[in-house]
């Protein structure tokens, strides 16, 4: 079966990127490249909307399958080209479509090496989309690792501060996690009678293909299941990121260009959350000798610690970008907390908590993406992100201030915005399972309110500081965002309101996915 839409969606950005890089010539090449790249991301966005809307919620299961069995036609390696979406991946595909478009639009002002910049940005979008729709572990791994190259280049070449150091740190952390993941994949594969890399059980062309979760259920694996679980967990913990392997994130975010921060916070971190749900949760419920239920309590504790630790560190930040980066550590802790709602046994599992984890990924993607976009717009004008140097920007840049405030309110969980729905779902779902950890983590929201409002207050509303970082002349000439800047901003703000007011548009979808993962 080859539905085709997912293959086209995934490879459209890469194909356009390569064609543009090779063939755009002439005086106005840079301008053409901008337009074509933005056009490609818009087309991809439309395709992701089609995927999301086209998913038949009544039929559930894996849909829009692209299956090519003889992708690697040797019997020793049963890996096939298998793409498909289910309730878990469809909203994340949509999220990638939205953020990919916003990132390309937000890169309008890039002047340096435009051709390469958009090449890498579009390749990055292909890699991320590929991660979400791959249902073959080898394919998943390829996309998961491929994302490193564009990300490295984008940070190292177009970054500021210490770009090469940050890019290298990012690559080394992720590569180490990736190496562990590869070992885990091979260990699963060579377990007798598994010998497949299909991530979920599904039916293609009337043929039933059993997936790894089904094949390893009740089996002794070649190395202890706890070890394999651990390898996957570490790989995703690095990417999520969780304390104590989070330290690459603030550096990468601070030094990356705005649009890359948007992609990094918006969708790259979600690859880890997706992996936790799809692999750590999906594979290890019925394995022999060890299941995810055995460690759910530790995961809840780690999540609570990560939330609080991230929150406290965030309060101390004076750089706007670094502040938002650390807040990601805190917010992604909620994702793990939601995953921990799987509980100490199948009977204790709270599907609401798991749903909350998935929704938290979606909402954090849009909210933090918006926040980074607004920091970028503000920085473009003031040329500083140092909070004590700023103040009173509200009068000069009301639009930027308003949308910054929206991102901030979303982040701290104001009702009617999407962050509130996600957090309340995580708390309600997980409280019944891990009351202590949830109670502790709930303070993360208080911290979030603190650091977010304090920053917005100091940067936008307070009086200008006694020793301003920007001269009066610059301050007087500050201009607000224009309509070109506002397109990506609105594109990211819209889902925050939509999901906040009408959450079931994505939660229904996630629910189908979570039920399938829980089997």
């Amino acid at each position, binding site marked *: 079966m080859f539905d085709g839409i997912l293959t086209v969606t995934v490879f459209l950005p890469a194909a356009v990127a390569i064609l543009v890089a090779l063939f755009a010539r002439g005086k106005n090449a840079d301008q053409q490249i901008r337009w074509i790249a933005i056009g490609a991301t818009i087309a991809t966005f439309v395709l992701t909307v089609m995927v999301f809307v086209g998913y038949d919620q009544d039929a559930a299961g894996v849909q829009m399958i692209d299956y*090519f069995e*003889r*992708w*690697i*036609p*040797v*019997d*020793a*390696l049963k*890996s096939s080209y298998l793409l498909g979406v289910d309730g878990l991946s469809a909203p994340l595909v949509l999220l990638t479509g939205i953020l990919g478009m916003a990132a390309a639009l937000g890169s309008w002002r890039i002047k340096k090496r435009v051709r*390469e910049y958009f090449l890498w940005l579009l390749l990055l979008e292909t890699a991320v989309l590929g991660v979400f729709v791959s249902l073959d572990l*080898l394919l998943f*791994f*390829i*996309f998961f*690792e*491929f994302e490193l*190259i564009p990300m490295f*280049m984008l940070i*190292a*070449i177009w970054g500021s501060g210490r770009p*090469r150091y940050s890019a290298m740190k990012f690559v080394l952390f992720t590569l180490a996690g990736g*190496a562990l993941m*590869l070992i885990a994949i*091979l260990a699963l*594969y*060579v377990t*007798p009678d598994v*010998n497949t890399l299909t991530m979920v059980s599904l039916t293609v062309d009337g043929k039933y293909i059993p997936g790894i979760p089904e094949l390893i259920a009740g089996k002794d694996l070649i190395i202890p299941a706890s070890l394999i679980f651990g390898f996957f967990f570490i790989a995703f913990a690095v990417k999520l990121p969780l304390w104590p392997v989070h330290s690459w994130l603030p550096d990468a975010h601070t030094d990356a260009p705005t649009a890359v921060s948007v992609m990094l916070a918006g969708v790259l971190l979600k690859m880890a959350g997706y992996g936790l749900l799809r692999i750590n949760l999906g594979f290890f419920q019925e394995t022999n000798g060890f299941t995810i239920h055995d460690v759910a309590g530790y995961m809840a504790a780690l999540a609570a610690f990560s939330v609080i630790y991230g929150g406290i560190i965030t309060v101390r930040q004076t750089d706007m970008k670094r502040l938002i980066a650390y807040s990601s550590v805190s917010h992604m802790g909620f994702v793990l907390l939601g995953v921990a709602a799987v509980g100490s046994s199948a009977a204790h599992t709270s599907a609401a908590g798991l749903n909350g984890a998935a929704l938290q990924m979606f909402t954090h993607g849009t909210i933090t993406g918006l926040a980074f976009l607004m920091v970028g717009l503000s920085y473009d004008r003031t040329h500083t992100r140092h909070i004590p140097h700023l103040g009173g920007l509200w009068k000069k840049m009301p639009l930027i201030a308003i949308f910054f405030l929206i991102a901030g309110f979303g982040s701290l969980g104001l009702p009617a915005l999407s962050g509130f729905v996600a957090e309340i779902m995580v708390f309600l779902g997980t409280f019944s399972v891990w009351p202590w950890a949830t109670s502790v983590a709930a303070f993360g929201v208080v911290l979030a309110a603190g650091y977010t409002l304090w920053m917005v207050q100091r940067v936008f509303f307070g009086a200008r500081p006694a020793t301003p970082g920007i001269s009066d002349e610059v301050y007087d000439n500050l201009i607000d965002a224009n309509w070109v800047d506002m397109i990506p901003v609105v594109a990211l703000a819209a889902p925050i309101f939509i999901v906040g007011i009408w959450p079931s548009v994505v939660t229904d979808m996630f629910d189908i996915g979570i039920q399938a993962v829980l089997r």
Partner: protein
Amino acid sequence: MTVQDFWVLSPEIAMALLALLVISVDLVTRSMAKVAAVAFIGLVAPVILTLNLWFGWFGDPATGAALFGTFEADKFSLFFKFLLLTVVAGTILASAKYIASDRMKDYGGEFVSLILLSVTGMMILVSATELITIYVALELTALPVVALAAIHRSKQGVEAGTKFFVLSAISSVILLYGFAYIYGYTGSTHLDVIMMRLAVIPTESGVPFGSYAVLLSVIFIVAGFGFKMAIVPWHMWVPDVYQGAPTPVAAFLSVASKSAAFAVVMRIMYVAFGNDALMQDWSGLFAILAAVTMTVGNTLALSQSNIKRLLGYSTIAQAGYILVGLASVPANQVGATFAGAGPHGVLYYLAGYAFTNLAVFFAVIAITSRTNDDSIEGLNGLLKRSPLLAGLLVFGLLSLLGMPPTVGFMAKVVIFGSAINANLTWLAVIGVVNTVIAAYYYLQVIRAIVFEDAVDESKFSADKPILAAAGVAAIGAGVFGLAPFLLLEFAEQALSIIPGL
């Protein structure tokens, strides 16, 4: 010779005639561009004749052997002939500018003609099914390369040529010694007859390969071809010759000569020593050689500062990965549910490696011919000076490193996967560790290209022919990585002729 023989040998005959044609054209024209063009267009003839043998367009001459069963144009050999023809086409394109240069223009015709002759030898080599034919083909392969390596008559060039000549002579002697043992033991030089005789000769228990004669023979044969495959401990000539010889020759050697040697070793091992017990014995031998070759090649590459030497050591390490596939024999498999993938992996890896390595070498040729500096520091800031060449080189290096989704990654996955299947998990682990070691030196080169600042900021570009050759090679490395089935289905057909697969 019968008509049948002529059909079966037609690609080789066409190739030899082309070599003569090129040297004749060289007599009447001074334009090296014309010489290269004649050679390149002339390649159409052997390509069509090879295609004919594969598809049987004009009747079906591929069935049955030629020349009294010493030569067989089976699909296995045709797979390698296609590969060799692709490589030589690329090499000619990439040398078009080089042979027109001042110091080369007097020998341009000879240069191209010698390459074509060497390829003729390789094409016979991959088809030979008899030991004497193998030996003769091997000599035809090696002697033109001696002249090619020394064609500059510079001190370095002559040193490279002499080194290659002496070592290739010694390796030939060792090889002959191995052939003599197996001939004395079985009374035949035909590979299939050797297999049959070995099956009926009683074996001594507790001796590898069932007898010391066979053991010595296999060791000598492997040692003899070890020089051509450039595996440790017969690798010493590689860096010196790569550095001293003209770079197009190094590119040609690193790919064509290696592929042909692996092809003939595969044929000898699977056809002459292909029964299950022997297979397990030589699998062990290749497993050890693989582990040593990968580790030594990568370790020595770490401290290189010359790009050509670094690539020399990198090709040694790559040969080690291919040996992993050779060691992963079907006889060792766990369970009966799998067919062997080791041989598939070898063919896939060789083809993927050919495209990758050519892209890298061609980019290096194009760059060093402008900068006249083949140190790694000479590549500093290349991305700003020549973005296209830099992109091609970085892509090729990432594929050599084994970064998803290039062919280098896929080939490694197939090879290591087949090793695990063949109960050689330890070898797969050594392979993965080596990949990580290799990442260091490949990334060092990439770092120089992308991040360092150039001393000389002037921009430059490459000539169209070499750019086309490097571009096609890089596209191949990308496409075969994303769509491994294109090559693997092809390999599957090629391997269907080996008994026991």
